[in-house]
Structures are given as C-alpha cells and as structure tokens.
C-alpha cells in the first residue's frame, strides 16, 4: 500500500512552528535547574526530528539531531546551562525555522549560516563530551549464502514483553525455507508448569541467500532476552536434531531448566539519568483543536444566513403589527426574540472557534526585545499582560508585522540608553509593556514605554520641513494632532535611518495596515515620561457594525468605525472652490465633500447639500464629508465578498444582505477618499483656507 504522507505535512509544519516558538520562549527564560523547561524544549526538538524524516524534511531532521543531543545532555545533567549554550540553541531554533519555511515555500536557505551554526553545535558536542555512543551495528559476518543455523533459547519471561516466539519463527519463514526443531529440555512437570513462562527453545535451520542483518532484525527485539547463536550453514551440514518433539514426557525432568538464568540482563537494569519525574506539564495546554479554516468559514457563512433569516423574520413581524390578532403577534414577537438570542449566541460561539489568544502574536517579543536591546545598548524590561485576550486568527496574522514595527520603534526611538535615563533621574532599565484587553466588540492592544516620549518641537520641525504643515499651523496645533503627524506618509523622526526601524516602512504603512483591518491606532505621549500607542481592532473580519445610509433608491453601509459624526450642512459653511470642488468648514477644519450619488453614479433625492446629510468620516488619516440623502438604522452586518463571483469594486469593501433579502454594498472609506483624488482635494482645502482668510 502506498500512503501519501504529504497530507500530514501542513500539520507537521504547524506543530513544528509551535514547537519552535515554545523552544524559543522557554530558552529565553531558562533557569539552570528548571528540569521541566529543559524537558519541554527537548520534547519540541525531539518531535520535530521525529517528524522531519517521516514527512520529507530530511535536512531539518539531520540538523535537529545535534540540537536534540545537546538538549538530551542538558536534561540528563551532563551539560550545564550557560548563556553561550542558550544563545547557540536560539540560533539553532532560527535555523530550524528558516529551513522549514524554506522547504515549505520552496526557497533557498542561507546555507552558510546554517552550516556555521551546525558546526558550532558539533564543536560543542565534541568538546567535553564523553565518547559518542558506540553505534550498535551488528558485526557483519558474511555467511556463504547457503543459510543460517540458529539456536534460539528465549528467557522464560520473554512473553511478558509481548514477544511471541512463534511470531519470530513465522518471520524467519518469510526469509527462506525453515526447518525447526523444538527443544523441550527445560519443560518441567505439568504441575510445576507456569503457562506464562516460555520454556521451549529452538534449533532453526534457515536455508536461502539471507543476509545476516535480516536475521538479526528478526531477533532485534529479543536479543537481550535470549540465548542466541547464529552461525552460517556449512555446505554439507546436516540438520542435527537435538531433541525430538515427541519426546515430551521423558524430558520433563523437574527443576533443571526451570530456573531462569537470572544474569545477562545488564541491559535491563541500567537506568539512564534518573527516573522521569512525571506530572508538571509546563506546556500551555489550551485544549486546542486544529481545524481547517475552510470548514470554519463555511460554518460562519451558514450562521450568517441564519442571521439574515432572523432579521427577515423580524421585519415580517414588524409588518404584521398592522394586522393579525394581538395574541398571535405577541407570540411571534416572543419567538423572534428567542430566535434572535439563539442566533446571536450561535454566531458568537462559531466566531470563537477562529479566535486565538493574542499570546500567539506576543510570543515573539521577548526574543525580539532581548536581541534588539542588546544591539542598541539599551536595558529593557518587557512585560506583557492580557495575553489570553482572544481575537480572530486572520486579524492576528495581519497585526503581527505592524506590532513588530511599533515595538521596534519604541525600542529604537522611545526608550533611552542607560546613561541618558540615569541623567534624567529614571532607572537605567527602561520598561516596555504590551497589554491587551477587550472593549465592546473590539480588542485593544497597547504598547506603553517609559522612554523619552514624543518631542513636540522635533516633530513639528520635521513636519514643516516635509511640507506637511505650515509654520502657522504648527504653533496652534494641539498635542494629539502633533502625535498624529507621525502617521502621515513620508514622516520619520529618526535622525538617521537605523537598521532597526528604518526598514523603509513608515508609520503611515502601519496605520494603513491597521485601518485595512477596520481598526485604528493613536499615540499619546508625555515628553520625558513615555508614550502609549493604542490599537483598536475588530475581533473578527466576518462581521462589522454598520450605519445604513440611503442615496435615492440605493442603500449603502458605512462602517461605524469610520464615522466621526453626522450633520446637516449649514449653507454658510459650504464653499465651492475653483468652480467645482466643494469643501465644508467644520469648526476649524476643512473637509472635502464627497457626493456619493456622483461618485457611485446613482440618482439621489436631491443635489442640494443642505437638504441631505453630511456624514463626517475618517480613513487613512484623512477626513471627508460624505453626502447622502438619509441615515437609516445601524446594524451588525455579515460581510460578503463581491469577488466570489465578480470582482473587487472600487470604493467598496464588500457587500451584505439586508433583512429584506436585498444586497447592500459596504463602503471602503479610505478607498472612497483615495478615489476622490486626495492631492487635488488637499490643494482645494488649502485654497479654501486662503480664500476664507482673505
């Protein structure tokens, strides 16, 4: 039978990456006497090695072999835990991860680096280690191809290890032609016979061109539990029956063969390095299951349908209010209420299947902070809280990089070197806190440092240099707007582009990524005392809270997270610049007006901006006023992709199905603002400002 092992590769990779993460985090806080931690690390390496060969990652297995041996010596107390060793093992973890990723993605590994780490491991293994285990290879003796004469006398308790001599004989029969003679010499009288003992022995003549190894293999599991002689058959040798099997009775001479030879068990009694201390399972066992996300997505879609049905029923119920008896109506209402509750609960629990604790994203930071603070010559203590706060797997995957960027930034620009901190009257060691908690339907992630904070003057100066703001703007700008400048495209406060945070990715990209997830990010800072970055993300990408708006006959959904406020336009605040572009002055801000009916090419109720409503929205750090006819209700909507059957539609992020079964498009606010051409709008806004001033 051929079994395709490739079907298990994904599982192997998943658990290997998990194992590597566990190795890394345990290594980072490894104490010399923490046997269980070393065991956990060892087991992770051991599993990877065991699976690697089986699932076609041979080189990974070979590499891991040395790591495993090192770890085995550590847990056996034969090798001391040292910072150098931990560093080497961390590098090995990196190599293993890189090799697995490379094998998975079919890309090249950094062979040089892996070879370097590997030879460091080998060197470490050789230096003080006792002689390597002698390989237990059987002495290969030739034999002349005629076959073998085998004397097999198992110890009486051989069957208590589940080894059945008959199966061994059967296995020999598969190798060649076999003649067996049974020796009953050891059999006691029937009264004394313990049926659980094996007191028979055999003389076996195995004929055929059978290799010695093949024969050895048959006896491999019992070689220490038997007297075994394997000799090549000489050409003319005749089978010399030791005893005839019919001679049972005569040879039941009591006692003689019964006592087992209680010696020759050297292999048994050797205990290697202390008994396993059981219990104390340090692995964070979350009782998790690995489920194919496709299946879950299907389930989520189904529940989405249920939600739609429920809201459809709700609508019917409301319509019935005009007709029907009071009692019927009450019942319908009650039923609907419970349907609504059930639906919501079901939806929540289904969504929860996709949820993972944020620790999956946080776990990489101890290592990152460890490495980076050393590189920057800073002392940093990282603490994390709320690691068990859960969020959607997809959101988690997408928030990883932005978080890394923000943490790098905090280390690079926020926290100071010890001398500076001491001079400022602060402890030499800086503190960085990663915190997560749920708030409403969102997860809030905070990155808090007690570093230098944001330097208002520096930021303003840079912003003026970059042409982001004018000198006049700068003076009056409130602190929170100053912090916000950091997220503007093209802004970077780093004096020099360091290799820590200057990776060509600006904070604007971080913000863009977070907004693409339907979230927001903001910074608050106190100069000299530190900064706090607050990220808000939806718990899931499958549903969102939406505001229904109407333009003519069409209904659109604006994500609530994008909406700042809604208002009726005051005629005196409206300006038409350059005969075409419209801006609206809201307090001291100029907003471009986006006429949804124009952008989307539909007929609205009115062209008169004062007759409809302006919805003030924000996306990509820009604000705009979206002109609609009417605001309808707010509701949670299930997001459906237009790309399933069609394609992406500019200005929308998808669609949903409303209670009446019709489709409504969900607006992509940043996309909508981009569509209306921000540079031009910018110019228009500036001009409005100037015109106003004149």
């Amino acid at each position, binding site marked *: 039978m051929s079994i395709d092992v490739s079907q298990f590769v994904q599982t192997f990779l998943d658990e290997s990456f998990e194992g590597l993460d566990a190795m890394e985090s345990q290594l980072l806080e490894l104490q010399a006497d923490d046997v269980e931690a070393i065991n956990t690390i060892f087991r992770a390496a051991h599993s990877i090695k065991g699976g690697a060969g089986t699932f076609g990652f041979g080189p990974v297995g070979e590499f891991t072999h040395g790591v495993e041996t090192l770890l085995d010596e550590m847990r056996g107390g034969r090798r001391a835990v040292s910072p150098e060793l931990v560093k080497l093992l961390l590098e090995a973890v990196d190599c293993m991860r890189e090799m697995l990723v490379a094998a998975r993605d079919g890309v090249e590994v950094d062979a040089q680096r892996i070879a370097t780490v590997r030879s460091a491991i080998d060197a470490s293994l050789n230096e003080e280690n006792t002689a390597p285990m002698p390989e237990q290879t059987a002495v290969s003796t030739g034999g002349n191809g005629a076959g073998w004469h085998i004397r097999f006398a198992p110890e009486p308790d051989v069957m208590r290890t589940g080894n059945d001599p008959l199966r061994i004989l059967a296995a020999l029969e598969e190798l060649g032609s076999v003649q067996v003679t049974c020796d009953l010499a050891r059999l006691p009288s029937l009264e004394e016979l313990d049926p659980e003992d094996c007191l028979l022995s055999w003389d076996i003549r195995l004929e055929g061109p059978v290799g010695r190894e093949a024969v050895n293999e048959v006896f491999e599991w019992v070689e220490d539990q038997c007297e075994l002689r394997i000799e090549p058959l000489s050409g003319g040798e005749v089978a010399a029956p030791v005893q005839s099997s019919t001679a049972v009775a005569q040879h039941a001479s009591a006692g003689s063969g019964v006592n087992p030879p209680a010696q020759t068990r050297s292999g048994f009694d050797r205990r290697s390095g202390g008994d396993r201390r059981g219990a104390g399972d340090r692995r964070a066992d979350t009782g998790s299951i690995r489920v194919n996300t496709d299946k879950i997505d299907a389930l989520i*879609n189904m529940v*989405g*349908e249920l939600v*739609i049905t429920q809201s459809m029923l709700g609508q019917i119920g409301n319509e019935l209010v005009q007709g029907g008896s009071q009692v019927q109506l009450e019942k319908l209402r009650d039923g609907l209420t419970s349907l609504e509750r059930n639906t919501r609960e079901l939806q929540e629990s289904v969504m929860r299947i996709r949820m993972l604790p944020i620790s999956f994203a946080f776990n990489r930071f101890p290592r990152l902070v460890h490495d980076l603070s050393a590189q920057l010559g800073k002392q940093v203590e990282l603490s994390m809280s709320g690691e068990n706060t859960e969020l959607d797997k997809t959101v988690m995957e997408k928030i990883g990089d932005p978080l890394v960027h923000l943490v790098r930034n905090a280390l690079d620009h926020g926290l100071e070197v010890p001398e500076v901190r001491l001079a400022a009257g602060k402890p030499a060691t800086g503190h960085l806190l990663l915190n997560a908690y749920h708030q409403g339907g969102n997860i809030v992630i905070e990155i808090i440092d007690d570093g230098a904070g944001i330097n208002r003057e520096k930021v303003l100066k840079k912003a003026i240099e970059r042409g982001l703001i004018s000198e006049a703007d700068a003076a009056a700008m409130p602190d929170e707007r100053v912090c916000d400048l950091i997220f503007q495209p093209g802004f970077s406060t780093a004096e020099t582009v360091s290799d820590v945070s200057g990776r060509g990715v600006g904070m604007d990209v971080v913000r863009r990524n977070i907004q693409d997830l339907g979230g927001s990010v903001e910074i608050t800072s106190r100069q000299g005392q530190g900064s706090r970055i607050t990220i808000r993300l939806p718990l899931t990408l499958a549903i969102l809270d939406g505001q229904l708006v109407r333009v003519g006959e*069409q209904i659109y959904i604006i994500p609530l997270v994008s909406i700042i406020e809604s208002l009726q336009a005051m005629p005196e605040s409206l300006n038409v610049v350059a005969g075409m572009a419209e801006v609206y002055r809201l307090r001291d801000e100029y907003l471009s007006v986006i006429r949804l009916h124009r*952008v*989307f*090419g*539909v007929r609205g109720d009115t062209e008169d901006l004062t007759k409809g409503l302006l919805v003030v929205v924000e996306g990509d750090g820009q604000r705009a006023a979206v002109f609609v006819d009417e605001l309808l209700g707010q509701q949670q909507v299930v997001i*459906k*992709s*237009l790309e*399933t*059957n*069609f*394609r992406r*539609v*500019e*200005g*929308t992020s998808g*669609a949903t*199905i409303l209670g009446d*079964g*019709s*489709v*409504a*498009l969900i607006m992509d606010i940043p996309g909508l603002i981009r569509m209306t051409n921000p540079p031009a709008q910018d110019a228009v806004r500036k001009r409005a400002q100037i015109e106003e001033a004149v």
Partner: protein
Amino acid sequence: MTQVIKQEQSLRETAGKAGDSQVNQYLTFSLADEYYGVDILRVQEIKGWTPVTQIPNAPAYLKGVLNLRGVIVPIVDLRMRFNLESVEYTPTTVVIVLSLMHEDRERTFGIVVDAVSDVLNFAPEDIRPKPDFGTVVDADFISGLATLDKSMVMLLDIDRLLRPEELSAISRATE
C-alpha cells in the same frame, strides 16, 4: 423548468448510448427575435427578474448584484451586452443563472433574457463553425451555430462572454 431539464437529461443519456457521436444539450432562449443557446450543464437555475443592487461605475449592461440564497451574484442584461434595443422588464422577464469557469474557479453569473424557449440536442455535426461576418453579437462569444426549423441558434461561449475582467475593462473604457 427543472422538470423539463431532468427529462431531457435522461433522454440525452439514452441518445448518448444509442449513437456514437457525443450529443450536447443546449438551453435555448430568445433575445429580440433571435435564438441563443448555452450548454445546459452550465445552467444552475432559471428564475424571474427581481430588482438588483447597482454596482457603482459598472457598464450599463451589468444590471447589478442579486442575493441568491446568500450568494451575491452579478446580473448581466444580455440585450444591452449585445447592444440590442433594451426593453422594460416585466414579470415574465427571465434570469438564467449560469456557472462559468474563470481563473480555475467556478463563478456564478446571471443573464437577463427575453424568454427561455427549449432544451435542444445538437450533435457536433449539427453545429457549424462561427461565421466571421457581422452578426449583432461579437463573434468572440459564439462557439458555433446550429439550425433549428430553419431558424438559427447561436451557441454562446459563456466563459468568454462573462469574464469579470472583461466587465471591468469595459467599465474603464466607458468612463
């Protein structure tokens, strides 16, 4: 309608066994007095016209999208697609829901036609290659011509006709 299709399908099986040549079945429909056919195996269902949600900045013939049991399906008006004179939709206006292959993935589209007429069997020898002279329909979308009672049936290649990027390309061109 479903009934009809099922019966015809069993007919087709019999026909397939009886003759050597591979007989294909086509759902035929009318559009401004002309007849068109689509491979019956691509037809998911036939339903009456219901209002759709407009797609911003799409070509006029893309009427919009529809909720088909939780799936959002684009609907194309075939008269408008072929630049025929458009007519008011009535309760008898019909939408044929088709599955098509695009980028190795099955997609569902709906087409608005005047009326569905019949399910017909055509053997390969009944089908003539597409003409290179001007029909109202861009010849690219036609996989062949067949004749029925002296009237011509244009067999449509729906994978070409309803390519999502085709629809977006046109939308850019018309902007």
